[in-house]
Each structure stands twice: as C-alpha cells, then as structure tokens.
C-alpha cells in the first residue's frame, strides 16, 4: 500500500493514509511516554501490513481498515494513556 511515489493514490490507499493520520493525531493527545509507544506500535503495524499484504487483497484490507477504525476510536478515549503489544506465537495481540 505504501509503495507509490507519484501521487496517483487509490481510494483505498487514501483511506489507509487517513487512518494512519488519525492514529498519529490521537497519539498526540497522550502523555509523552504513551505517545511514543502508540506511534511505535501503529507505524510498525502499518508498515508490516503494507509489505505483507498483496495490494489487490481488497477484502482483507477493508477488514483491516474497519478494525483499525474501531481501534482508533478506543485509543481516542482519554482514559487510555498508552498502548502495548505482545506476540503470541506469531499472532499479535493488542491491548491497552
């Protein structure tokens, strides 16, 4: 998803980038330590998915977008101050 150098972005790519922007904006509202943590995990997730997922796998990308939007809504909650992730047998689990 993140491979375009020119500015011919597809609609789906724009959605993904907007979601990424949303996460980075939400991260700003957290205390410095939590903010770094959120930025680290979120950028890692986006970059990993951008490399692993075939750009034509629309169904999966759309699923991830929906999931991402829900997670973003959770992170926006002001009670949440940080984010941590752990690997369980290759599968990644996100918790607050």
């Amino acid at each position, binding site marked *: 998803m993140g491979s375009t150098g020119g*500015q011919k972005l597809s609609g789906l790519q724009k959605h993904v980038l907007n979601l990424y*922007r949303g996460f980075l904006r939400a991260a700003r509202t957290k205390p410095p330590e939590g903010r770094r943590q959120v930025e680290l995990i979120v950028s890692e997730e986006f970059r990993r998915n951008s490399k692993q997922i075939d750009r034509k796998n629309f169904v999966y990308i759309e699923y991830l977008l929906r999931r991402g939007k829900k997670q973003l809504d959770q992170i926006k909650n002001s009670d949440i101050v940080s984010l941590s992730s752990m690997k369980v047998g290759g599968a990644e689990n996100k918790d607050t």
Partner: protein
Amino acid sequence: MASLTSSSVSFKCAVLPSSFNSKNHGLKSSVSFWRANQVKPRGLSISCAAKPETLEKVSSIVREQLAMTKDATVTGETKFSEIGADSLDTVEIVMKLEEEFGVTVEEENAQTITTIQEAADMIEKLQNK
C-alpha cells in the same frame, strides 16, 4: 459596467477600418481587463514563494524524519519519492511539519504535496491565514 462599455467604445473608434473585427477585439480586451482586476489581489496574498528559513526548517525536518545522511542533498525541488519516502513517510512528515509550525493541514492538501518547496509554500500559506 458603465466604464467597461465606454472603454470598449473608445477602442472601437481607434481601430475603425475593420469595424466587425475591432468590435470583437474590444470586447475581448474589456473582458481580460475585468479578469485581471479580479485576480490580482488573490495572486498577491497566496502565490508568494516560501521564505528561505521555512524551506530550511522543512528540509531539516524531512532529513530527520527519513534519517538521511548529512551529505545527501535536499533542495526545494527534491521530491519526497526521490529520497525514498513512501506514502506512509509522507504522512509522518506532514504530521511532523504540522507540529513544528503549529498549523493544521487538510487531508486533501496533505496528499498533493510532492516536493519540499510545495510543503514550504503550503505552510506559509497556512501560517498567514
């Protein structure tokens, strides 16, 4: 409107010989005159090139964000894609710029920026608002 017609009339008189042509011509010139008047103030407030300081700050932020080496050259014409920035990097750069300059970049604008000069111009435009 009154001044417009009078000017076109006087023009018509000046080039009398081919009356049909000059009528057209007079009309055309009056239209362009009208337009020039409208555009001028807008052009003055928007399309001024960014200050060198802004350009300098933008390039240093871009360097930092992409972890570039000191000897890599970054100028106003440098495209983000040329220095290895993908679309995710571009989002990060724009977010960083927003913070450093205290502006908010609209989504549509954020995705049309391709060079450092364009980024600097846009920031100055937003700062002047």
